[in-house]
């Protein structure tokens, strides 16, 4: 039976079919749906971890103990998990261990465009790259097999177009799900320098063996046709090559670390003109060049953004196609904070107070957009607090003019250590924890503060007040972000006190509240436009009547706008 599946659904199916027992992840686009689909197979234990490093380590522990394990994350998550990754490459694991790295060429929803194929080379671990959903599923099985045969973790590297594109997948029955017994082996798993040095040699031997294996593995193969043009491609680039030049000969690479140098030489000898087609870094190209082979790659294709069939055909034919420019000038439609979003009032206040805002990653990064525009920096998960500390170490006088803002999930991910640093190193920084009781941006995943696990079990909830107290923060205030007057007073007070402080702005995400209030009414509006400064998608200005108007379908009745209207023109129904 064939079913249409995204790459992420197919990987989850592979986890089910190929005997994987443990899965862990931290949500991040475009990887999130892998675990969201794995949870549909109750045979597999799965969890959201507080961050990618923890997820990686859970996977490592489970695989050392004898269970096939998989961990999934977006590409920047691998930076967080890199520490355990680069050492588990030395130890190997008793049962299969696979890391799914979901890269995002084109930066559809990421802060950078790093090419994680370089991590596989850096860590010296084998890497597989599927080019459609069927291969994504099959390669979970192949990755487990390689992992167990060569005693190494394996990277399964996908990109947004694999993760979020659907294609047909053949479903099979699952193999038996066996967990091996635990075997103690400290010389293999305790990475003291002496043991590490021994394992270091094992890594080289293993890569040597893999170098032979990659020459004959079925996923690396020549598709010989017209031999005037030869294209080396992997992942989604293979599909673009097939689409653009259906007659070309292709060396399709599925196992891309180590690369098959013999096969590449053989293919190069068979074709007149050789191209390598890859998004982002010249990863394959450099290897081909190092073999002394003439190949055309980044001199023709851009080292940034996504490729497409059109780019491939235009560049290879040398004929610029018809440029199809947008027909009309259309105002952009960026994502916005939802009506009723608890973050809105905080950013409105921060803008009013003209504070420097050290930002972080989540829905609230939208606080950087007009009209709120209340964010100065966003670097990576967890950077708000520590970067804020750095700012006030550079300019101590900034301490009473700035705040760090961070969401509940991001604080738990990697904000706690930053706050610890603020206390330890005497930074008079005010941190606002935007606690909306969920990991919202990626589509509402649970986290250690929500009271529920991925598998739906009740869980203890992290107590933010107690946690901050334990870190040594003496000034902790809780506030309802809809109570703008109190929010403003508290922020003003806390930024001015010469010691570390935390404000916890607590209200659940508007999208997880089932019960909503009636939409607001506009009565006797004088058209001052104050309410428009909130950037609520339910409020607009009626140019004809010169009054604000509230979209009755969009408004969820949160009433935040009542706080900013000085003329009592915005009212709850019946008031």
């Amino acid at each position, binding site marked *: 039976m064939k079913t249409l599946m995204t790459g992420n659904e197919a990987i989850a199916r592979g986890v089910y079919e190929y005997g994987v027992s443990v899965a862990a992840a931290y949500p991040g*686009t475009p990887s999130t749906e892998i675990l969201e689909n794995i949870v549909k197979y109750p045979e597999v234990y799965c969890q959201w971890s507080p961050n990618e490093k923890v997820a990686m380590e859970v996977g490592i522990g489970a695989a050392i103990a004898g269970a096939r394990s998989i961990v999934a994350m977006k590409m920047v998550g691998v930076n967080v998990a890199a520490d355990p990754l680069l050492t588990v490459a030395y130890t190997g694991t008793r049962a299969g261990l696979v890391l799914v790295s979901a890269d995002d060429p084109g930066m559809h929803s990421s802060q950078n465009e790093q090419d994680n194929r370089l991590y596989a080379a850096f860590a010296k671990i084998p890497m597989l790259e599927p080019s459609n959903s069927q291969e994504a599923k099959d390669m979970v099985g192949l990755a487990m097999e390689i992992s167990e045969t060569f005693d190494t973790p394996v990277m399964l590297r996908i990109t947004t177009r694999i993760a*979020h594109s659907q294609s047909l997948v053949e479903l099979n029955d699952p193999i038996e799900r066996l967990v091996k017994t635990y075997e103690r082996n400290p010389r293999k798993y305790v990475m003291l320098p002496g043991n590490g040095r021994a394992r270091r040699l094992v890594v080289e031997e293993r890569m040597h063996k893999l170098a032979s294996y990659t020459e004959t593995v079925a996923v690396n193969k020549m598709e010989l046709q017209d031999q005037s043009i030869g294209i080396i491609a992997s992942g989604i680039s293979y599909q673009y090559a097939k689409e653009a030049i259906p007659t070309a000969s292709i060396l399709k690479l599925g196992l891309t670390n180590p690369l098959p140098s013999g096969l590449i030489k053989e293919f190069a000898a068979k074709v007149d003109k050789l191209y390598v087609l890859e998004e982002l870094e010249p990863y394959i190209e450099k290897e081909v060049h190092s073999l002394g082979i003439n190949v055309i790659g980044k001199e023709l294709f851009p080292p940034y953004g996504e490729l497409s069939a059109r780019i491939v055909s235009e560049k290879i034919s040398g004929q610029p196609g018809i440029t*199809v420019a947008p027909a*009309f000038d259309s105002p952009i439609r*960026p994502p*916005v904070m939802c009506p009723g979003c608890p973050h809105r009032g905080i950013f409105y206040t921060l803008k009013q107070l003209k504070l420097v805002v050290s930002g972080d990653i989540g829905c609230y990064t939208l606080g950087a957009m007009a*009209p709120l525009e209340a964010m100065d920096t966003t670097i990576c998960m967890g950077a708000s607090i520590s970067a804020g500390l750095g700012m006030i170490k550079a300019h101590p006088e900034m301490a009473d003019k700035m705040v760090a803002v961070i969401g509940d999930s991001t604080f738990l991910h990697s904000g706690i250590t930053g706050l610890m640093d603020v206390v330890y190193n005497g930074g008079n920084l005010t941190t606002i924890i935007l606690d909306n009781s969920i990991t919202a*941006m990626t*589509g509402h995943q649970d986290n250690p503060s929500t009271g529920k696990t991925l598998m739906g079990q009740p869980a203890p909830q992290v107590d933010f007040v107690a946690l901050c107290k334990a870190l040594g923060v003496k000034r902790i205030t809780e506030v309802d972000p809809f109570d703008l007057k109190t929010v403003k007073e508290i922020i003003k007070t806390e930024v001015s006190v010469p010691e570390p402080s935390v404000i916890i702005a607590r209200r659940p995400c508007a999208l997880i509240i089932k019960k909503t209030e009636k939409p607001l009414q506009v009565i006797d509006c004088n058209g001052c436009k104050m309410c428009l400064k909130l950037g609520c998608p339910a409020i607009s200005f009626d140019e004809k009547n010169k009054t604000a108007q509230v979209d009755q379908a969009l408004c969820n009745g949160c009433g935040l706008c009542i706080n900013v209207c000085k003329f009592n023109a915005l009212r709850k129904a019946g008031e």
Partner: protein
Amino acid sequence: MSEIINVLLVGVGGQGTILASKILTHAAIAQGYEVKMSEIHGMAQRGGSVVTQVRMGENVYSPVIEAGEADFIVAFEQLEAYRWAHFLKKDGVLIVNTQKIAPLTVLIGAATYPESILNDLKGRVGRFVELDGLKLASEAGNVKATNVVLMGVLSKYMNFPEDSWQNALVARIPAKLLELNKKAFASGVAEAK
């Protein structure tokens, strides 16, 4: 590449483009087509522009539709039709739900919602269909069925047998909402005549 059919569904987060694409792909698979579908998630769900690309044919490689290559564009909202019109082939069909959803840039006065969208599109596109999908859906019983109304319109321009669309509705819509959605689909079909 002429045997491949490219359908672009464009709209605003929350308008139900994903369900519409699932109905379409279900019907397409029943024709024996290889189908690929691509959508971009992530920040799009917060009221941003959303695009779903569906490609079908004997051999489909890339999941992505290039500008100027769409046989059909189904726009769930006027401004999104405007934004994506250049993706249509010369002889392609543009189906526009006349609903307007102002982006925040317009709401806060930083941009204006173009007035002449429908006229401009009519002038540019050979085969142009406009309809008030919201009204038809609400007559069928729920405005949320606008996406299914639009699939009804699309069905009249694609040569799939009527059965395969009906089967797709049964497969993709929860039983208790099926009758309502069948009505919505039929009103779309009628509108296209």
